[in-house]
């Protein structure tokens, strides 16, 4: 029997991670994410897992990557400034293809900004925060139920694609309490990283299977010897400066995500088939947006709702498929314009894209989005 819980978003996220098999957490306290660390510190020892509060955010992602190298599913969680500090080591996890999950409970910025107030100002930091090219996978929950479910998805994706997966939650969602239906643990589909099937002497640590471009990963202590480095490396994991080897590596890690984008991308729609106006919102904002769309429909306007659950890769094709009837897409965001540019890019000039900005630390009211809908219909 599934259980019903009444959880805070941050607690649900931690519980989802545990259900996904997460057995290591490295963290550093930061508002509004701290309840994730608190929950993990309490729950992990009960499951023979390991929790450590490190000396800073940089160390906490480093420890998380280190734990994953031993084969443990590993999590770190933070908010804006902490996410910035993690970026360099996040890059190492992309480069060395180490599966980890990183949660950013978004708050207002830049800098210390608004520690206790909501924003969506880290969308581009998630995509391009670390230096260098990499394929980002970032998921964005809109409810406490989804905090739980997307934590499981995030681990499954991280393990499958052997790379970091980011969850972009936000302050309102993190601290909101809602009912969560918790499925029985044996009904949850879990993915584990591919283990090498060859003997230690035949193991080539970064030799990818052409079927999916993803190399099998041995854990430290599994009987294999291998080298992990943040340097661009060849199939043996050794640093290389040879142009063909560099290119092969760079293009493969981009390709491993791109060719399976249809498996990764999740989105949600309502009343969109005949919509002339589409409201595209994500995270907490999507709920306000949906409420406004329903009110507008009730008032007889042809308005629909589109919510990317996967922010990265951005659901271009999925959005484009909805643009036959639409003339306008409204993008309400708690930032000065981040995802709106992706929507403009994806819509290829076929529709007018209207930005709606709110950066005062608060969440949109449905009436504000409704007002915008009325302006454009």
């Amino acid at each position, binding site marked *: 029997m599934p259980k019903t819980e009444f959880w805070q978003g941050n607690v649900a996220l931690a519980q989802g991670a545990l259900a996904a098999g997460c057995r*290591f957490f490295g963290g550093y306290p930061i508002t509004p994410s701290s309840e994730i660390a608190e929950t993990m510190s309490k729950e992990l*020892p009960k499951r023979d897992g390991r929790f450590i509060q490190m000396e800073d955010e940089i160390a906490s992602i480093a*420890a998380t990557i280190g734990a994953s190298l031993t084969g443990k599913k*590993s999590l770190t969680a933070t908010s804006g400034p902490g996410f910035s500090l993690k970026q360099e080591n996040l890059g190492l996890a992309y480069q060395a293809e180490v599966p980890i999950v990183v949660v950013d409970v978004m708050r207002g910025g830049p800098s210390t900004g608004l520690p206790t107030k909501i924003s969506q100002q880290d969308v581009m930091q998630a995509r391009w925060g670390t230096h260098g090219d990499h394929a980002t996978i970032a998921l964005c929950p809109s409810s406490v139920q989804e905090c739980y479910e997307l934590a499981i998805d995030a681990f499954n994706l991280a393990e499958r694609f052997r790379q970091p997966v980011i969850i972009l939650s936000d302050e309102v969602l993190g601290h909101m309490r809602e009912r969560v239906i918790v499925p029985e643990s044996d009904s949850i589909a879990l993915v584990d990283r591919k283990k090498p099937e060859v003997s230690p002497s035949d193991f080539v640590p970064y030799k990818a299977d052409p079927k999916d471009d993803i190399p099998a990963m041995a854990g430290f202590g599994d009987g294999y010897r291998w*080298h992990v480095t943040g340097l661009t490396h060849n199939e043996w994991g050794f640093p290389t400066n040879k142009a063909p080897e560099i290119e092969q590596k760079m293009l493969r890690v981009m390709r491993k995500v791109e060719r399976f984008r249809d498996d990764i991308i999740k989105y949600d729609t309502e009343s969109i088939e005949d919509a002339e106006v589409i409201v595209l919102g994500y995270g907490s904002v999507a709920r306000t947006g949906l409420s406004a769309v329903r009110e507008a429909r009730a008032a007889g306007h042809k308005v629909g709702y589109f919510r990317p659950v996967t922010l990265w890769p951005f659901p271009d094709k999925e959005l484009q498929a909805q643009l036959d009837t639409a003339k306008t897409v409204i993008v309400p965001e708690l930032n000065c314009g981040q995802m709106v540019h992706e929507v403009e890019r994806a819509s290829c000039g076929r529709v007018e894209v209207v930005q709606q900005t709110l950066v005062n630390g608060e969440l949109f009211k449905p009436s504000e989005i409704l007002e915008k809908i009325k302006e454009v219909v």
Partner: protein
Amino acid sequence: MPRPEVMDWLRTRFFPHIWCPGCGHGIIMHAILRSLVDTGKKPEETVIASGIGCSSRMPGYIDACTVHTTHGRSLAFATGIKLANPELTIVDVMGDGDCSAIGGNHFIHAARRNIDITAVIMNNNIYGMTGGQSSPTTPIGAKASTAPYGAIEPNFNLCELAAGAGASYVARSTVAQPNICEKYIKKGIENKGFSVVEIMTFCHTQFGRRNKIPKPVDNINRLRDKSVPKAKAEKMAAEELQDKIVTGEFVEKDTPEFVAEYEQLIERVRG
């Protein structure tokens, strides 16, 4: 030439190494490998971690579970590895700048936790790989590419720092005494806790060239001549010790180790 017993620990296919001819790092790598062999460690159950710099390229040459991380952060990675799999033996190899400048915070906290990792610091008083900039251990008056008029900052005593922060084994030697290096590293590996072995080495191409000691052999002789065993140093005046390298074992104590403490916590919680 390496001793035959360490050959199984070398990734010879990855050679030649990047170190300059005459560099002291090879002496340290050999001492580390001999220590691992002597303590009966298996390569597939041993992790060699490092940060960034000349010294930190060492794990690439060692055929174990090796991880070359970001600058200064290797101890934080190593902490996660050790906590997630306490069965593994971990040696973290660092340069002086890597350990005490950008990695200073991780260094003191690894010592405070007394986590079972052996940190081998290869102190050559300079940032070699990036072209000879001054480090927190560049002696006052020495020239570096970012200290063209001579360094004016007081330098860290890494062993005192480690001891003050809580490391349970702390020792210092020089590449002029490879057998003593081996002995200290071996004791560090056997110590259940955070062990710091500082090995004074040299960078003749970046430090030596700027400070009129360009030949490797002169650097080795200099390290030998400047070394003063701890027992002798205790009887010397501060002025006499100014330019000296005090060698020996500074801390050997039995204090609770972090991973073992966590294992006990799990037992307590799970009943």
